[in-house]
């Protein structure tokens, strides 16, 4: 005999007068709208204003943003630290590369395929990742990022027998009349970024998104309310890998190469994603976008500041990173939120990534 469950009969009360969503200060709302419109306008107009070389840099920032957003899902929202997302990026780049160069596919069709392949690899990594926590997970992912170019060396023979694939000039040409190739590439990347941002926004504000955060902060308690830990962790891995794969695919178009000749290149990519995520604001939606722009801008400026002493450039970049983390420990978006909360005298939204159960320390 099983008992029936009561759903709980409640009396009518003040619960009905409390808004179901936190009220937003109209000043903040106004500000957000203005910023949003300006940003959108700038983003749409940019490729007509800048020369091709600059557009390429902007496009690079955009695909960096996509990859960083993917990493943010896994590391920011779900707490699984990965310093190997470059590997998924590489998977995406080489999937597109192989399909375009060896199979003659139209480039645009390879983007979803690249994301899918990367997602599958992410799934395969996500399962063993369940066994390995925090620091060790980070190191295993590091190993992946280092392993990937090695695998490329072994199994991919591009031009000259090295794992380097390049599209022919016609492969990634603009599909739209009136747009130069670099402008088209920019818009395509922007489109993917917008789509990906909307997906992220929807996910994070849904039951699944809350489950991701719950698993990050108190996984045992999450299990006791019915969250399937393994499922959440593995799926987050797969989805975040898909984002990185899509970014990699876009990089094939923009940089016109899929290159695994340098053994540390995908490790460097992984670090790039991580930096963009942290600088922009971990566990925020727009953080990775802002962070990616900041990182790319910063790199350009430190490179330009020292003509003739190229060694100084990474040193300055490193110093700048340290400074940013000091001044804005919650990233740029985190800092903006604190600022607006001070202005509106409302409490700031919950801290983006405070560590209570810290996964990276024993």
């Amino acid at each position: 005999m099983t008992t029936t469950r009561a759903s709980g009969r409640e009396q009518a009360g003040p619960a009905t007068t409390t808004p179901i969503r936190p009220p937003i200060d109209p000043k903040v709302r106004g500000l957000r709208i203005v910023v949003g419109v300006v940003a959108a306008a700038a983003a749409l107009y940019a490729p007509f204003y800048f020369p091709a070389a600059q557009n390429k840099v902007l496009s690079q920032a955009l695909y960096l943003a996509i990859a960083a957003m993917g990493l943010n899902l896994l590391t920011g929202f779900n707490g699984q630290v990965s310093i190997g997302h470059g590997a998924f990026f590489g998977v995406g780049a080489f999937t597109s590369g192989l399909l375009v160069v060896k199979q003659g596919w139209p480039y645009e069709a390879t983007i979803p395929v690249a994301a899918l392949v990367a997602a599958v690899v992410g799934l395969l990594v996500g399962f063993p990742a369940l066994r390995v926590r925090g620091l060790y997970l980070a190191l295993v992912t590091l190993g992946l990022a280092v392993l990937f170019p090695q695998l490329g060396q072994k199994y991919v023979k591009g031009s000259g027998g090295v794992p380097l694939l390049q599209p022919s000039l016609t492969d990634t040409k603009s599909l739209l009349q009136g747009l130069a190739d670099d402008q088209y590439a920019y818009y395509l990347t922007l489109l993917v970024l917008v789509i990906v941002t909307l997906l992220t926004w929807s996910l994070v504000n849904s039951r699944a998104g809350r489950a991701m955060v719950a698993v990050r902060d108190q996984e045992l308690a999450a299990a006791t309310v019915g969250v399937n830990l393994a499922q959440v962790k593995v799926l987050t891995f797969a989805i975040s890998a898909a984002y990185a794969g899509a970014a990699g695919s876009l990089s094939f178009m923009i940089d016109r190469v899929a290159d695994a000749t340098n053994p540390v290149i995908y490790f460097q990519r992984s670090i790039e994603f991580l930096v963009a995520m942290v600088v922009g604001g971990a566990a925020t939606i727009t953080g990775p976008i802002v962070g990616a722009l900041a990182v790319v801008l910063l790199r350009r400026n430190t490179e330009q500041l020292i003509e003739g002493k190229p060694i100084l450039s990474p040193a300055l970049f490193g110093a700048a990173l340290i400074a940013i983390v000091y001044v804005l420990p919650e990233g740029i978006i985190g800092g903006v939120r604190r600022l607006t909360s001070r202005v509106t005298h409302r409490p700031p939204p919950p801290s983006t990534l405070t560590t209570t159960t810290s996964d990276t320390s024993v």
Partner: protein
Amino acid sequence: MALLSVRDVSVRFGGVVALDSLSFEIEVGQICALIGPNGAGKTTLFNVVSRLYEASAGSVDFDGRDLLRLAPHKIVELGIARTFQNVALFPALTVLENVMVGAHAHGKVGFGRGLVHLGVRSEETAMRRRGLDILDRLGLVELAHRPAAGLPFGTLKRIEFARALATEPKLLMLDEPANGLTHGEVDELGTTIREIRDQFDLTMLLVEHHMTMVMAISDHIVVLDFGRKIAEGPPDAVRNDPKVIEAYLGAPA
């Protein structure tokens, strides 16, 4: 018929025996209290029932079903919810969102639907309304949109209570719910527990140290010491049981 049936459950951690052949039952609709000195094994029992610990021996049946075969995230589907001794809320979420996570098992939007926004809006609205109702019932509704981090311990305990209610349980296990409350608040809590039991048609299992509250609201008490049950029965019987007095106060000189 017994809702929860614990039979000869033993839990060993290496050489330490946390629970030693523990057996007791809880009837539907009862408020049952699990008491005993610190380290007696009370939270261990909770962890066995919520499947966070493996039992070395014995069986636990809930509503006729064998619990010990289930994964931890499945027990909420049977209707068991619990709170934690040291509060395990999600600090990055608001109070309301914490309660909404409690309703996770009743939701449908997974990663697929979450990404493409299918059914998200309606589910969110429904979950938020329901969460606010529960918060209201526990007098927490003003805090709904505040981050859970930084609130006083007693408040956090109540939020956890709300989260557990959101799972729509049949059996609600509360681990030291009166921790951190003043005397007045403890009395209020006792009343609240009884009212909620009646209103939501629940069965409750409490671990508690506040004897006045335990004696006042419990229908049935189980006393543990060193992992073993040393007494069981209604409050009056337990209160006067010499073994219980000895466990708490020591043997008479």
